[in-house]
C-alpha cells in the first residue's frame, strides 16, 4: 500500500507544504534541523492536525477535508527520538502494550524481533535501567509489535554515540530494509540515509526540494547544497561476488569494483557509497596504479560547487560523482560527452551490507 501525503500546515512563522508519495520500502526524509521533518511525521501519525490537504494510505483516508482519523485508529508504528518508553512498565510490558488494544503480532513474531534487536535479555528490566541504545531497540520492537501499516522513525539514532549508533543501525537495517510497508525515516545523517534509503525526500524550510530513488537524489545537482564535503557521493548497489586473496568482487551495473576486507555473503546485495572526493579523473588510461578500480566513463554533467567542480560521470548505467579542482577541470578540458577514466579509491569502510 502506498502512503500519499499532500498537506499544508502553519505554525508561527513556519509553513509546511508537502506533497510526497511513499511506496512500500524506506523513504528517508532528509534535511537540516528545523526543516519540518518531525512536523511532517507527526501529521502522518495524527498527533498534529494539518491545516489542509489529505493523507491517504491506499484507499483509506486518514486526513482530508472531512476526515481526521484519531491517532489510535491509524495503524502506525512510531519510534520517537527519545524512545518514550513507559517508565512504569517493564520492557516486556512496553513491547506488549499494543496487544491490549487489538490483535497484534503473534507471540513468535514478537519474540523473533526481540531476538533480532537484541532485547530478549532485557525483558524484565525497567526502562530507567537501560542504556540509550537499548532503549531505542526496545522502542523499535514495541513499534513493530503493533503490526503497523506505516512505520515512522523520527531520528531514532540521534541520541546515541557513534559506536552505539552503528550497532543499532545494523539491527535497524535487518528489520526494516525489506519492509513491505511504507517506512518514513527522518534523519539528517548521511550514513543512515545511505544504509537504509530506497527513496529519499529532501526537505528544506517546509518544502520537499527533491524526491525519488536514493541513488538519483544523491547525484542530483539540486541536492548539492545539502550534501557538503564528504557527504557528497554516489550510491552504488552491488552484487557480492567471489572473494580471492582477501579481495571481494562487487558487481554493479557498469563493471566490478574490487574491495579488500568486505564482510558480506557472496550472492548478497551491498550498498557502496562512493564519495565524490574519492573519485579521481584521468583523460588517459592510467597505468601502474596501486588502485584496483579504474573504469572508463562518459562525462554527463560539469558544475561548479563552491571552490571546486563536481563532475557527473556515467559508468554503464551508474552515475558517479567526482569532485575536482577548477584548475584540473580547465587543464583537462572536460566537456559533457567526453570519455574519461575514473579511479575509485573506495575502501571497505564505505561498503554497507
Amino acid at each position, binding site marked *: 500500500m502506498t502512503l500519499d501525503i499532500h498537506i499544508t500546515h502553519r505554525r508561527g512563522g513556519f509553513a509546511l507544504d508537502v506533497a510526497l508519495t511513499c511506496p512500500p520500502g524506506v523513504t528517508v526524509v532528509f534535511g537540516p534541523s528545523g526543516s519540518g521533518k518531525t512536523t511532517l511525521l507527526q501529521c502522518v501519525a495524527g498527533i498534529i492536525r494539518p491545516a489542509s490537504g489529505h493523507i491517504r494510505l491506499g484507499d483509506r483516508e486518514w486526513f482530508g477535508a472531512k476526515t481526521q482519523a484519531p491517532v*489510535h485508529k491509524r495503524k502506525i508504528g512510531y519510534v520517537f527520538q527519545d524512545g518514550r518508553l513507559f517508565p512504569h512498565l517493564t520492557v516486556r510490558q512496553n513491547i506488549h502494550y499494543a496487544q*491490549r488494544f487489538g490483535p497484534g503480532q503473534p507471540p513468535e513474531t514478537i519474540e523473533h524481533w526481540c531476538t533480532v534487536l537484541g532485547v530478549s535479555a532485557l525483558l524484565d528490566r525497567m526502562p530507567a535501567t537501560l542504556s540509550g541504545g537499548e532503549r531505542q531497540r526496545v522502542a523499535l520492537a514495541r513499534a513493530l509489535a503493533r503490526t503497523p501499516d506505516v512505520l515512522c522513525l523520527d531520528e531514532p539514532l540521534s541520541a546515541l554515540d557513534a559506536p552505539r549508533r552503528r550497532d543499532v543501525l545494523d539491527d535497524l537495517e535487518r528489520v526494516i530494509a525489506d519492509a513491505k510497508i511504507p517506512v518514513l525515516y527522518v534523519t539528517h545523517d548521511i550514513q543512515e540515509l545511505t544504509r537504509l534509503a530506497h527513496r529519499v525526500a529532501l526537505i528544506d524550510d517546509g518544502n520537499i526540494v527533491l524526491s525519488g530513488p536514493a541513488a538519483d537524489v544523491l547525484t542530483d545537482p539540486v541536492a548539492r547544497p545539502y550534501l557538503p564535503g564528504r557527504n557528497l557521493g554516489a550510491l552504488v548497489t552491488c552484487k557480492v561476488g567471489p572473494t580471492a586473496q582477501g579481495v571481494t568482487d562487487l558487481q554493479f551495473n557498469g563493471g566490478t569494483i574490487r574491495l579488500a576486507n568486505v564482510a558480506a555473503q557472496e550472492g548478497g546485495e551491498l550498498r557502496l557509497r562512493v564519495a565524490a572526493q574519492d573519485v579521481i579523473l584521468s583523460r588517459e588510461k592510467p597505468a601502474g596504479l596501486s588502485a584496483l578500480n579504474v573504469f572508463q566513463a562518459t562525462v554527463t554533467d560539469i558544475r561548479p560547487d563552491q571552490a571546486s567542480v563536481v563532475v557527473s560521470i556515467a559508468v554503464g548505467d551508474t552515475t558517479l560523482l567526482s569532485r575536482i579542482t577548477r584548475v584540473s577541470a580547465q587543464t583537462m578540458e572536460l566537456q559533457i560527452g567526453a570519455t574519461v577514466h575514473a579511479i575509485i579509491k573506495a575502501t571497505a569502510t564505505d561498503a554497507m551490507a
Partner: protein
Amino acid sequence: MWTDGLTVAEWQAIGLSIRVATIATLVSLPLAVAVALVLERLRFWGRGLLSAVVYLPLVLPPVVTGYLLLISFGPAGAVGQSLAVFGISFAFNAAGAALAAGVMAFPLIVRSIQLSLSYVDPGLEDAARTLGAGPIAVFRTVTLPLIRPGLLAGAVLGFAKAMGEFGATITFVSNIPGQTQTIPSAIYALFQVPGQDAAVARLIIISAVLSLGAIAVSEAVARRQR
C-alpha cells in the same frame, strides 16, 4: 488504660472524624483528578476563574468558607433547598461535616495531583496513542499510573486536612456531640470547661497518631507499588 477516661462523646468524636475525613477524601479524589486534568491540560476561557474558585478555600478564612457553605447548602440556602427535594440534607449532620472538610481539603488534593500531572511527559501519552490506546485507555494505562505518587500524597494531605478541619465545620454544621462534633470541635468544647486538660491532651495525641498513621500507610503503599 489511659483511654479508660474517654467519654462517650469523645469516642463519638474520634469515630466521626475518621468517617468524615475518609468520605471527604474519597469523594474529593476523583473530582480532584478531573479538575486537575482540566486545569493542567486544557486551555480555555474561564480557566483562571475555575482555578480561583478551586483554590479559594485555601486562602479564605475558614469561617468565611463555612459561612458561604451555610448560605448555599444550609436549610435556607438555594442549593440546600433544591437538594431537600431529593431528601438530601447537609444541614447540621455528618454529611455536612464531610462536605465542609472536603471543600477545605479539595485545593490541597488538586494542587498535589496537578503538580504530578505537570511532570507527566505528554509525549508518553502521544506514544500510547500511536500504540492504539484511545483517550480513556491512555489515561488508565499511562497518565493514572504516572500520577499515582501525587494522588497518594494528595489523599494523605487531604485526609490530614479533613481530620483537622475546624473553622468551616463549626460554622457550617455547628458542634453537636455525636452528630457534627469532630476531634477539633471536641477539643474546642473541652477548652470551654476548666479542668479538662487531661482530656484535651488525650484527644491531641489521638489526632496526631491518626494523621501520622495516614502518612505511614501511604508510605507503605507507595513502597509496595515501586
